[in-house]
């Protein structure tokens, strides 16, 4: 505070605006959470190998368009509600508190699956890397446990990888992906450039659900953009522009890199190459330097993603604890500002997953990373569809301040498309998991979300009958303390 200067009108707004985030900062935070190298090297190659579907590049383009349309209503509504970083806040306000708690539990399951899945890629990758460089043979799960331990400690002592560290890693990751794509792209298989994998009409030839699920998984993280709204320079412009920008940028990277891989190895051979080489399918397209840099960055990217999803998990648990929808302890923080209990619960889930897979002797890359990761991605897809519906209902009741494109047309288009996608993925789940015929796993994994939804609705009904004070604040997250919905729009009415 300036001690002696006279108090000038508007000085409060000006001082607060000074610290606010612009479009590039928000886009950086969002992209860092998306972890592009984890997706390009890990998800795309495993998807080629397991599903045998070649139209993944086309799916990336299609899904990015759907998500851009989705974001129109999503970002618009985020200005009108509090706790706008969490899907269940939207769902509670649009579709009711019962649907909200169902959404909250679906999200908890989905983010936890995404988080624990990452250990299944990190372990084997480090195992292979050390074996190759130092000729030391150590089991994948020992590396996974080491990564788990570091995530657990960082989660509890609150050493965030700072925005700067993540920003540098992200930039280098993107440069390496582009460089590898150029290297691979100039040497197409059989000296013939094929654009087949980019052709959306190929999507309909089978496995469309699997390709869409993989693409959705690739974009998970973009939904965090409204979290930064309270600190954005211009709540009405910064967040939407940063969201579209991030989506389009990663679409170019994902579609480009996955197309180049198919083009470089040949559309008909990509599945078998990816099956043998895994993430090396991407790195092998470059020279020695790029290959090594890619492998090292892949591990830092996986680790950063594991930490980011760990944080996303406890954030959800923390918000629900603050509302007392889940035990209050989850919403309590220690002096260091970390909800220790919420963080520890997520760590316990991670530990259980690694131990179970190690004892069961299951394949970490396919059965842990890809199965649980894509299942988590499917959970996010369900939440996207519910959120779109919630946006329509919310604006039908509170139409003020938004035009018809933002409050009705865009959310309606995205709701229809997302519901179709949910249907296609659910229908194709066994293909997604790598089976050629319907399987038990293909039924059990997606039905986890049905269980979560049923439990959520039941719990909300119990709260309505027995703990009406808690029921009343469902969806408000940290704002539950005031019992009022303090939306970013209201708080930042003057932040221009």
């Amino acid at each position, binding site marked *: 505070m300036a001690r002696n200067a006279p108090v000038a009108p508007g000085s409060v707004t000006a001082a607060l605006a000074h610290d606010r985030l612009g479009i590039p900062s928000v886009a950086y935070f969002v992209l860092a959470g998306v972890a592009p190298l984890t997706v390009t090297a890990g998800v795309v190659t495993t998807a080629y190998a397991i599903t045998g579907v070649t139209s993944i590049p086309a799916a990336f383009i299609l899904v990015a368009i759907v998500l851009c349309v989705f974001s129109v209503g999503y970002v618009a509504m985020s200005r009108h509600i509090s706790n706008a970083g969490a899907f269940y806040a939207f769902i509670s306000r649009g579709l009711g508190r019962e649907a909200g708690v169902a959404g909250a539990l679906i999200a908890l399951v989905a983010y936890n699956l995404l988080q624990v899945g990452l250990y299944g890629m990190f372990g084997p990758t480090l195992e292979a890397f050390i074996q190759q460089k130092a000729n030391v043979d150590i089991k994948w799960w020992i590396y996974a446990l080491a990564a788990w331990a570091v995530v657990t400690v960082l989660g509890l002592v609150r050493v965030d990888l700072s925005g700067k560290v993540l920003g540098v890693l992200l930039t280098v990751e993107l440069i390496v992906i582009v460089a590898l794509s150029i290297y691979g792209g100039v040497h197409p298989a059989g000296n013939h450039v094929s654009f087949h994998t980019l052709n959306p009409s190929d999507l309909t030839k089978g496995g469309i659900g699997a390709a869409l699920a993989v693409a959705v998984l690739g974009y998970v993280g973009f939904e965090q953009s409204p979290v930064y709204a*309270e600190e954005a320079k211009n709540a009405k412009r910064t967040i939407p522009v940063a969201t579209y920008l991030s989506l389009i940028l990663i679409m170019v990277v994902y579609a480009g890199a996955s197309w180049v891989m198919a083009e470089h190895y040949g559309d008909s051979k990509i599945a078998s190459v990816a099956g043998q080489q895994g993430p090396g399918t991407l790195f092998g397209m470059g020279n020695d330097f790029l290959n090594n840099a890619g492998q090292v960055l892949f591990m830092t990217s996986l680790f950063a993603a594991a930490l980011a999803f760990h944080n996303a998990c406890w954030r959800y648990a*923390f918000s629900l604890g603050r509302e007392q929808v889940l035990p209050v302890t989850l919403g309590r923080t220690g002096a*260091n*500002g970390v909800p220790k209990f919420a963080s520890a619960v997520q760590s316990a889930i991670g530990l259980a997953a690694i131990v179970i897979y190690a004892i069961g002797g299951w394949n970490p890359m396919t059965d842990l990373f890809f199965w649980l990761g894509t299942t988590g991605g499917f959970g996010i897809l369900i939440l996207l569809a519910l959120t779109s519906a919630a946006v329509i209902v919310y604006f039908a009741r509170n139409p003020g301040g938004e035009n018809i494109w933002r409050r009705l047309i865009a959310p309606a288009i995205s709701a229809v498309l997302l519901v179709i996608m949910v249907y296609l993925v659910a229908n194709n789940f066994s293909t997604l998991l790598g089976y050629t015929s319907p399987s038990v796993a293909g039924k059990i994994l997606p039905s986890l979300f049905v269980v979560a939804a049923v439990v959520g609705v039941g719990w909300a009904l119990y709260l309505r009958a027995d703990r009406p004070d808690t029921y009343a604040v469902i969806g408000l997250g940290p704002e539950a*303390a005031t019992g009022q919905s303090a939306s970013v729009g209201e708080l930042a009415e003057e932040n221009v």
Partner: protein
Amino acid sequence: MAVPPPQDGGPAYAEGRLADEFFLMAHDDESGRTRLPERITGLGLAAALLGELALEERIEMRAGLLDVPPRAGGLPTPADALTARVLQYLVAEQHPVRTWLAFFARTARDDVAGRLAAAGVVARKPRRRPWQPDGWAPTTPNAGTLPAARLVTQLMRGRPLSEQQTVLVGLLRATGLDEVILWEVRESAPETARHLAEEIAALKPSLTELISQTEAAVGAAIASHRT
């Protein structure tokens, strides 16, 4: 934290303004570094400064909004320069409580440290590493621990809290600092610890509003992972 017997006739701040006491509890008495993340310290101190004015009934908070009631115009300017300055801002512009918390949180640590330094209670302790902020350490060993010791002793002996102390406890809970300051009370006098929530709820509406707004602001900062 060990509890020395309460002393009378301590240093000049013995009466202890709300923000001063929060400041001393929020800082390590040796290194002078904040015990809470920077942003949460700022929010807690900003709330304590607003609390000082609310205790004197110079401002009112209700349903998220902050008002300077007309009758407060008749009161003399606060004798304390810092609260007088804060009040000047509150009179000049109208904002929700949350906006004011965010605004004063930016500078509250330096502002309150300045007030305590002027009274000779703390002195700047240069940072040990370039990326750390400067510390503010108490000038005498007692000065740093006394406010917490007094509060804890009072709670342990079951003596009633003053209005200001109840607000202080409310802010400790809202920021998570109670984990450090009040652990002994929770361990040895769990009944008293449980009772605190009721005492806070029984405060004047303006003061409970301030505490809930602080809790929400801290929660939002934690949930958006920008502490």
